């Protein structure tokens, strides 16, 4: 099985992935964890803003916009069966 690990900021629009890890050293991490950005959770990039940043993501049934500086903290893996 081919698994690719990238950071959430690089997830293309419309694609779904699974959160693998969060950089807990960052002060923002605790907040992201509390919001449900935890390993094993499915996340979908919905769309980028007209000027390229921020991006809205769908997670746990709600939508949250994150700037690149936040979404870079999150490592994801795209499993082959969830490409779209």
């Amino acid at each position: 099985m081919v698994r690719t690990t990238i950071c959430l900021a690089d997830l293309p629009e419309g694609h779904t992935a699974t959160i693998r890890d969060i950089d807990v050293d960052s002060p923002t991490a605790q907040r992201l964890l509390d919001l449900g950005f935890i390993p094993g959770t499915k996340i979908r990039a919905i769309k980028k803003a007209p000027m390229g940043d921020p991006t809205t993501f769908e997670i746990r049934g709600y939508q949250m916009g994150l700037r690149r500086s936040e979404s870079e903290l999150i490592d994801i893996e795209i499993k082959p069966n969830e490409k779209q």
Partner: protein
Amino acid sequence: MKNNKIFLIGNPNSGKTSLFNAITGERLHVGNWPGVTVQKIEGVIRSPEKCTVLTDLPGTYSLSPATPEEKVVLESIDEASKGKILNVVDISNFERNLLLTTQLVELGLKPILSLNCYDLFTKNGGSINLQRFAALTQLNAYPTVARTGTGVNALIDCLISEEKEPSICKNPSSLDFSEKWKTVLIKCAKSFNIDWAEASPLKKHEILSKFISTSDNNLSEELIKIRNDFAQEISEESKRTIKPTNLACELAMDRYSRIEKLLAATATVPEKNLPKWQEKLDSLLTHRIMGLPMFLALMIFIFWTTFSLGEPPMGWIESGIDFLANFAESKLSEGLLSDLIINGIIHGVGGVLVFVPNILILFFWIALLEDSGYMSRAAFMMDRLMKAIGLQGRAFIPMIMGLGCNVPAIMATRIIDSKFQRFLTILLIPLVSCAARLPVLVLLCGTFFPNNPSLWMFLLFSVNIAVILLLGHFSNVIFKAVENSPFLLEMPPYRLPTFKSVLDTLKEKAWHFIEKAGTVILAGTIIIWVLSSFPRDIPLSFDYENEKTLIMSVNDETERQKALESLDSKRELEYMENRYMAKLGKAIHPIMEPLGFTWRETVSLIPGFLAKESVVSTLTVLYLPFSSDLGEAMTKSGITPLSAFVFMLFTLLYIPCLATFGVMWRESGSLKFTVSSLFIYFIIAYLASFIALKVGELMQTADGIALENILIVICSIIAAWYLINITISSISGKMCNSCSACSGCPSKTENCKGGCHK
């Protein structure tokens, strides 16, 4: 009557404020929490037997505080545990909203749940077995729809019921820690010599955050050992390697698994809170190409309605005030008292009321945008642009409104949720040139540069924009290290705004403005009045009354009128020169001298604080000895176009008007912030004017304004900008704060706390 306290706690956007309005019959007061400038709203629930006070705590996603607002919530927990806690849970976003509930339960609290937005939940296909839910969580839960008031009565009955609801859990709730975590936390508390079961909620939170902290620094050896053992224990159990520094992540996973288990047992939760048609609407409204033009068109419409539909009522208020002033004048005998009433109080009150139409119209639109959910989409689209001046997307609307009038614009900063961002926006708005400053500039530019006034106006505005960019940029770089709240922008579902909620907002805003800012504006008006009408007895250089009778004997009607007019203005000038205002102006004149200002210009800046228009009228009087035409007079008195330009630049930037000052003070809740902002504006205006003067002088010595000189100036400004940037980033170790992916960074250094250079 007994007095009880209830604390309202919940996620941002969970409908907390609507529920607050639906529950409370009256608002007690809006104030600040001690020490921080975060709004505190209290209301009363009236019932025959007693009077219950409901305190609305700021919205928070969790109890681990990231912003000053959220710190307030955490610090209120101990007090709240003595009374009742009402936890608003947006059931249409169930899992995430239950995290806060879980945290409350973990700390031994027993909140009453309001499952809000219940209509949306059922409409999306959700259902819940309330009895099971209550039995498993050991919490009272009431489905409510705060916007329409459905279910609120049952909730109120529970809130005011006499039966002493134990705030401390008796039976284990399914949301509480599992045995494994509880055991380790009891051990952990023991290492601090604290009994976990007896500890206050705040103390428990403290122990818990120590236990899950991401580094071993500042921890006792005993605690480090407990952490290591526990990490090993759960590693073995889950067959993954878990580092003791990663316990925060484990706890979050544990919490969400508890929530998921609970929901699986009690409810069917819709897959997403945004129905399909809303997603379609979203992709249209935030479309890559179409989104921005649509938003801008909407902004232009809002701007136009706010400031042109606001004009007629403003005119009515003005004529009403004039009528009142005339009425008072006719009834009162001329004297100090009537002068105070007419010029001080009546015009002061008028100066307050005149802003109300603008505020009402603007907030009508803002309430619609906010309630409908479009505001978050607008912020989403504008965020990248506003980031350039260190602000976030929500700051766009207040900044643009500043072009019309700074007063409603500063009030509109309420839509910004982060305190730091709000203060920065409040700081920048007064630098946005409002509509009232335009006539002053038009008049001055027309006077001094009759050939091409628009070019000079354009230059003035360019300098203005540059100043805003610079100030925003620097404040952000300087304060970034202090404030590091994450940027999170939730996209709420679209909703139809209700008439009642819009009306509530309008009522609150108008009243808040009149009550809070109005008093400051009125007081300021009276102070300026005192400065400009005392001392009363001014020795005149010659007998005007005598002169008047002499003139009266002249036969020619037009000549007599003319002579009388010139005599009157002469007398006015003499009065003005001797009043405190002129004395104050002369006293501070040495400070202004390096800018090439005469004392007359310095004096005119003082009433300019009341309203910028007064600068021109004061100048006209002061320059009477030279000519009755201001432009001619100033040229005659030896003022060059250059010093006139510098004066205009200074007028544009130096200090916001009194009303803006009042609103800044009241909206920020901090006099220190407001006064230091005034100093900042003054210093900026001074520096900008000084630079303009020196640059202008340089260009004048080089035979008029040559193109290459302008180019040199522009290049040096860019170079200076670049240099300052480099200096600041080297001092503050920039790229450390906002940078992510820290742990994996190869160039991570000691002196950048937890950050890296990327």
